[in-house]
């Protein structure tokens, strides 16, 4: 890969990883969760729906599941759903829900929806590769 290609590639991945802290920071910055509730709601809904569809079209198709070209559907589908849940929970604060309850709803949604399992699997594969059987079986 050329130098320009590498710069673009790294910029893309760093930018995508920065989305998560930016999403969390948006609950305090640019007006915070109370003054930007509608913004959080709209951005969260778009991320959640898009991510679910990206992930779903790959999961239901056995040919797509066997093809590594669909890896982005897996990674970014769940990532966008993750961001969407955080933004939607943040939006609830602007509509009158106490912040601690919104945070609790966010965690419960992530756990029950198993949205974070893929990232847990990635982290386990990186940091403890011999102990991921419980996630893959």
């Amino acid at each position, binding site marked *: 890969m050329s130098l320009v290609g590498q710069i673009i590639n790294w910029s893309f991945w760093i930018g995508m990883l920065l989305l998560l802290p930016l999403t969390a920071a948006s609950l305090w910055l640019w*007006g915070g969760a109370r003054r930007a*509730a509608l*913004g959080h709601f709209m951005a969260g809904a778009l991320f959640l729906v898009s991510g*679910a569809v990206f992930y779903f079209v790959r999961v*239901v198709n056995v040919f797509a599941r066997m093809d590594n070209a669909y890896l982005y559907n897996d990674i970014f589908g769940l990532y966008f759903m993750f961001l969407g849940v955080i933004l939607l929970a943040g939006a609830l604060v602007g509509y009158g829900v106490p912040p601690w309850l919104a945070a609790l709803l966010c965690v419960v949604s992530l756990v029950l929806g198993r949205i974070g399992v893929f990232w847990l699997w990635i982290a386990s594969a990186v940091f403890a590769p011999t102990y991921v059987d419980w*996630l893959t079986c």
Partner: protein
Amino acid sequence: MLTGSPVDWLTKVVPDEGVLLNAVILLGGVLLFVMARGYFLEALIAVTLVSLGFALIWRIVGLTMRDFTPVTIVADEYFYKPPYLDLGPLFVCVMLAAIFFFAGRFIQGRLRQPTPPAIAAAISPD
């Protein structure tokens, strides 16, 4: 895999659609709550803009309704692959979300104008 969640129960009722059901439950719940709090106009604006944004993403990715049909048999006569995700749709999705965030902040500021002090004093029960 983890088992026993409500989504698992729902996937038995509607097979292979746990992810979509999860998204629908979350989004529907928040939308109902927003309307229950009386913010009907904000809910309407959100649904309209998000639908338009998703339609744009749908068109750019090249999705069709056939992509949502489960394919479980590995055989030539069933061969079909949905369009895979590329950098373009990802970029559009992130940009649209950023635009929606700042547009929503602007619209909310217009819809929820603070009551001027003189009027607030006049309508105050004290």
